[in-house]
């Protein structure tokens, strides 16, 4: 009787076993995708640094996909027609060899099939957005430029005056000049001290006593920023910890970005709706920089990488909305 029950159970379960195995593979593929691919690709979200992978398995043969995932460098070197075309299409940013095994490539493919399998056409590379006109300079940037141009003009005028003075040569009173130098030293020292006193309180470093209204964890990696409500400290966390592809922040709230990097140094530069820098910090492997901002103006804010991080550096960007 017991044998009969076991045989019956097997008869029920065996037909489902391949599907379960496929789902497990796809789930492992999902984690791999988040860890290795999502910095450049989406599945159905449009092209980024690399192509949208939705329906990739229907556009290319499985054999081609598995090989390209495991050894893109060799295929590009061999001038594989499709690989070369992709490089051309995507600003000549070459897909790196990520050291993936064939079994991992199959898991990735299972994930791509599962997520975007029903639609054959991937979103084509987005045409370059139309260039926006030059914005008006915001006040802090304007002040910086104004001070620089003003002081530089004084420097040039003083040099020009001295240079032209040589047309009427005469001996100078060195004693008088040294007296002037003393006054210059005192003035310069006073200006330096006053500027230090005025500007140092504006330093952007977090004040421990102030509690942030919202904490956002940011993990930077080549060439993407990942936002999360939980800390992401290594690439292994990706795919396991929920991340946010879209971030909304309340206006005037004190928001603390806890910024780290999963690979090399990056910059986390926050650009306001006027498309100029409002705040920034570095994203450094092994460290978390806490950047606090209170954003009053509603609108879309962009984040650009401000530390050179290799070929896709200029394409590394993200954003959030302030409401």
């Amino acid at each position, binding site marked *: 009787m017991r044998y009969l029950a076991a045989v019956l159970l097997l008869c029920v379960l065996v037909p489902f076993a391949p599907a379960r195995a496929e789902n497990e593979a796809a789930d492992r593929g999902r984690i791999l995708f988040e860890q290795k691919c999502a910095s450049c690709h989406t599945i159905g979200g449009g092209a980024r640094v690399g192509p949208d992978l939705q329906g990739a398995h229907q556009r290319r043969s499985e054999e081609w996909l598995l090989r390209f995932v495991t050894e893109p460098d060799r295929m590009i070197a061999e001038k594989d027609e499709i690989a070369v075309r992709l490089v051309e299409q995507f*600003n*000549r940013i*070459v897909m790196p060899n990520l050291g993936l095994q064939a079994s991992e490539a199959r898991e990735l493919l299972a994930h791509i099939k599962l997520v975007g399998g029903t639609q054959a056409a991937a979103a084509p590379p987005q045409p370059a957005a139309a*260039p*926006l006109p030059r*914005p008006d300079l915001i006040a*802090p*940037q*304007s002040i*910086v430029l104004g001070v*620089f141009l003003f*002081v*530089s003009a004084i*420097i*040039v005028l*003083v*040099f020009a005056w001295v240079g032209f*003075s*040589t047309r009427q040569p*005469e*001996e*100078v009173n060195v004693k008088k*000049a040294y007296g002037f*130098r003393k006054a*210059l030293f005192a003035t*310069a*020292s006073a200006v*330096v001290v006053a*500027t*230090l006193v005025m*500007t*140092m309180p504006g*330093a*952007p470093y*977090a004040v421990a006593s102030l509690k942030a209204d919202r904490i956002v964890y940011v993990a930077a990696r080549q060439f993407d920023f990942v936002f999360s409500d939980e800390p992401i400290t290594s690439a292994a966390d990706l795919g396991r910890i929920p991340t946010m592809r879209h971030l909304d922040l309340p206006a005037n709230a004190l928001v603390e970005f806890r910024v780290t990097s999963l*690979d*090399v*140094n990056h910059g986390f530069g926050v*650009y306001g709706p006027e*498309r*100029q*820098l*409002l*705040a*920034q*910090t*570095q994203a*450094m492997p*092994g*460290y978390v*920089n806490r950047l606090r901002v209170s954003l009053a103006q509603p609108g879309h804010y962009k984040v*650009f990488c*401000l*530390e*050179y*991080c*290799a*070929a896709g550096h*200029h394409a590394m*960007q993200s954003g959030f909305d302030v409401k």
Partner: protein
Amino acid sequence: MRPANSYTLYWMGVTFLLFPILILLGIYMRTVQAGGLAGTVTWFYPMMTLHGVGMVGVWYVAAMACAADILGRYTEPSPAVRGLALGGTLVGVLLLLACVFLGKFAGGWYFLYPLPFKGEWPAWSAVAFLLSLTVLGATWLVWTLDLLRAIAKKYTLTQALGWHYLAGRDEPAIPPSIMIITVSLIAGVAALAAGVIVLVLFYQELFTGAASDALMVKNLTFFFGHTLVNLAMYLGVAAAYEVLPQYAGRPWKANKIVAISWNTVLLIVLFAYFHHLYMDFVQPGTLQYIGQIASYASAIPAAVVTIFGALLLVYRARMRWNLASLLFFLGLIGWAVGGMGAVIDSTISANVRLHNTLWVPAHFHTYMLAGLVFLVFAYFYHCSQEAAAEPERAGRQKLVSVLMVAGAYGFFLMFYLSGAYSVPRRFATYPAELAHGGAFSAIAAVFATVFLVGFLLYLAETGSRWYKAMQTAS
């Protein structure tokens, strides 16, 4: 007529050969950023790396060559080490060219750890890059130590630093150029030692897989880079101290104030580099504030003693204006203007808006190109002309200066405007939101070309004298 030193002339040749190539790379970069040459965009970052390392390296060795030439008038640097410096530099340059052109290495001139290990370039090219820096660093360290040895043999280091002036004694009289060179070389030893540690850490990871602390390596890297660039600038200023009095017909002597000033510079320059790490909020806060204080403080001796001294030297002097004296004078303006841009950037609250925007290349191009390069060109022309004693054509020399000044400052202005508009540095192309960066780049490329034309005219003016000087070189 005074025969030129053959090694100085060799260094001039190296500079004249490499500088226009590196300018062309700069024009190429601005053209790509403007949307031109789109098919070559994958070469942008390798060329950026070559342009950066190349320019810093060329102007460091050119400034060292000036310093070695000045020292040769007072001391006896080793001829063997002079040869080693030239040979080692050429080997380093060849390795650099190989890793960039054959391996497309693109780690940037300060190769921030761990980027060299994590780029799209092959591993061998990163190793070749590290080897290139090792050869260059070791060579330059030996060169620096030999020059210090030569100074110490003649004066003792405390005398060369002018400490006897601080104690109220005027004897022995130390030429101010010697004092500045000594300060710069001591800072150079510290910078190169930091560079050696960075390289050792890279090699350690390469051979053992042991990762380093990113913040520590960043501190070492910027200490190395910041100090090296600044001391190159100081060596150019030393050349002005040495030669400009000859054209002004007045002395520019060392005294207690000059000694205080340059000893203070030695101390300050070692702490100012913290301003490169303002946006690394995990760096201890005290160091950030020290960075701003040191950066501001460094402006005082530069403005009150050196710039003021130079202006006093020239004011109403019976000045003999020629290409050398004009470029020395213009070089000091470039140092002052670029220094102002740097001081603004070293204000922490302004740095938030400027860090890693094009404001950074704006100010360092100002004090390197319109500062150091003009000072070195002035010295090179002066040496060639002293040896060749050819008749000078004032009109042509003015044209050279006008073209280089117009080209350079027009080029800088595009950087400053871009920086004020928050256009990031080191972007191969600009996104739609920052498309105005492309327009600034296009104008900058035109101005850079004007500078290049000015340089070629300078080359024609100096090159003939250089060739003649080679025939009588000592």
